[in-house]
């Protein structure tokens, strides 16, 4: 539970918004909730709805809208590959397919050890540095640009050891 685990962080987040606008705190609270397990579970949805004074459906909707929030446990390492138009022109589709092939999964799938998920997302505003993907971690979001399949596999292997 957020209030028990991160009482100070929750307080700090809420302090940023005037009380009648506390529903705005939903975004940072979701990030907070996602820190540990990499996804927001049902308990957290209910709790955040309570804190922000909105319905659980509202919170679920926000999680659904943003690519960076997840409501189901997937791989601890989540590669989000941009396959939008500019990246597609620089071979993002092929890149995605190859990475997946090397990992033995489908786009959107997770490796059998439950560690790596690869999924396609919309433009990440790094159009000139395709193929690219982003990975979300406790310290924020890291961009990996101008990637090749080999470089990506290398990255995955290193990261794999860390998250294990």
């Amino acid at each position: 539970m957020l209030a028990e685990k991160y009482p100070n962080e929750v307080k700090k987040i809420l302090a940023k918004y005037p009380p009648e606008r506390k529903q705005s705190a939903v975004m940072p609270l979701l990030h907070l909730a996602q820190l540990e397990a990499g996804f927001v579970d049902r308990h957290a949805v209910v709790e955040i709805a309570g804190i922000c004074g909105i319905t659980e459906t509202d919170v679920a909707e926000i999680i659904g809208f943003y690519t960076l929030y997840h409501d189901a446990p997937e791989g601890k390492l989540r590669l989000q590959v941009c396959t939008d138009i500019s990246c597609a022109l620089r071979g993002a589709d092929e890149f995605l397919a190859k990475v997946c092939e090397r990992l033995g999964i489908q786009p959107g799938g997770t490796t059998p050890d439950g560690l790596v998920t690869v999924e396609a997302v919309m433009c990440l505003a790094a159009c000139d540095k395709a193929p690219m993907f982003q990975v979300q971690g406790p310290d924020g979001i890291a961009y990996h640009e101008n990637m090749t399949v080999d470089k990506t596999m290398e990255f995955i292997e290193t990261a794999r050891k860390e998250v294990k």
Partner: protein
Amino acid sequence: MAKMVSLTIDGRPVSVSEGTLIVNAAKTIGIDVPVFCYHPKMEPVGMCRQCLVEVGRPAIDRATGQPVIENGQPKINFGPKLETACTTPVSEGMVVLSQSDKARASQKEILEFLLTSHPLDCPVCDKGGECPLQNLTMEHASPQSRFLFDEKHHAEKRVPLGDKIWLDRERCIQCARCIRFQEQVAGEPVLAFYQRGRSTDIITSSEPPFDSIFSGNTTDICPVGALTTADFRFGARPWEMKAAASICSLCPVGCNVTFNTRREAKSRARTGTTTAGGKVVIKRAMPRQNEQVNEIWICDRGRFEWHYVEREDRLEKPLVKKNGKLEKVSWKVAIEEIGNKVKGNKEEVVVLASGRLSNEDLFNLKQLADGLGGEALLYDSLPGGELTTKYGVSAGTNIGDMGAGTTILVAASDLYHEAPIWHLRVKQAAERGATLIIVNSEATRLDKYAKHLVRCEKGEAAKKVRELGAAVKDAKNLVIFFGADGSSALAEACAELVKSRAGKPNNGLVGVWPRANDQGALELGFKPAQDLQAVFEKASVVYIVGADPIGDGAIKTQNVKRKPFIIVQELFLTETAKLADVLLPAQAFTERDGSYTSGERRVQRFYPAVPALGETKADYAITALIAAELGIEVEGRSAGLVMDKLAAAVPAFADITYGKLAETTEQWPIIGRADLYYGGTSYQNSQGLGVPLGRENKKAEEGSL
């Protein structure tokens, strides 16, 4: 009166009040601009783009501020882009083209775009036949698809959004009507979009899922077959069904409904609770528009809880007790049995009837009781409820008109559960500026709309209401909804507050009765039954109609010292019916005609939807048979004739006839079978808007735009 604005739409002049949206202005002159996301009961959002039209506005000379005249005509400037008719308000001199090449092309394109991710599985879709997408596609879209069938977007087709509503994900066109209904109309935002673009889904995350008593309405306004009810899903095709106008019998709101019926194939053994083979059965209940009662909505109880009338254990034949056992007899034998028993005991006859019965049934029962010098008692109603016959709301009252200046007090009642559509309409009145005051011992879902919330102990509501006195005295209009709080003190306290306002529209009491026609019973002179146990012991004959006091525990038979002769008139073998000496099978309200008086004192007619079961008879007719046997003259030939007698006898009903009850006027929004796309599948009202009791001002009744 709002300022009027004149414009032309497709060359036809129209004048509408300022602020009217183009789509509605067009509707008033019979021009149908195609829409999906727009719904006349909700705020426009302009998200589907189906309603694009060309809009021109008069050019204004900057120097003079006057319209520029060219060739004797005002010069019209058309913008480079089309505009959404559902979000654009009219303006003076506007020229709207909904049928120009440009407008038609865009309407066609939007449809093509929508169909790229729609399965078009009309042959197996519940909505097929009454589907806006289907209709608008036939009318505006290209007959040929340019997309490959194999590349269609596919998604889950069987997603329960709770136990009442199912979602077919691939049919959804993301118009958000359902989401907005829950948010704006029902005030229960339990639906939302999940994901974006083509992956957009409807979700609910409430506990329990889709937690709303109004959920069924989303299936009416969903412009495709994405939302269907678990109850009716795959039940019938719309064109196979007949429609019968009726009134919901489950609470005092008196929502206008339409029962859709179908004759089931001989081979079809069962539907729901009925052995259906070869029979005409009810397939579903739909709202029927009455802007002064339920608008175009009904609650889920009204939509789903009529099934009891088709239960298999309905009584079909009269029964008489012989040697302690109920045995089937003919009507003649049963009525003679009653005659023999009652003739010797006239002075101690008690009629105990409930508000489940129609005005006609109750009137006949009252006639019979009076003729025998007996008593006519109303079973289980609100203490002090008779006060509503004096201080109840009167003609011209419409919750839909209430807003700033009106104070609405809800005392000891949970409208959400007891009279859901009143909850919805009171909530909307509060949002329009009416002052809502709630006095209750428990929290209710209406609380969050209240200006003043008064918590009290059970039994204390009367005191709290009296204390409010001064606070509500100055309200321009005051309407009080009251429920049960132990004694008649509450009704008296409420009556005190409205006494001086009696007869003024939008002022007075509304009893939140447990049954649909308690109001009617009281208007006809039934006395609320006080101590049933005592009544039972005193009477020599008790005639119980549509009530189960023993099953409800209101009478403890083990305590009854002297058992009277008991006549029961019922649909089922209830606990009370088991004790009957004579048990008479009545028709359900869906099998006959009649009228109810709603809590707002509006008399409304219902019509037969299905043929009567077995040897059952209408309650008023059975009473007339008994009366005839006892030498009392009571009309029993038809409900309409009973109403004529009733109107002649009871002043409040003075000018009511079945003809008047069947009158309608045009209502806004305009809905109907031909333009399902605009208002949804709610039925148009062509069988009667009802007549308020004691109406003084007929003008006030006429629907206004």
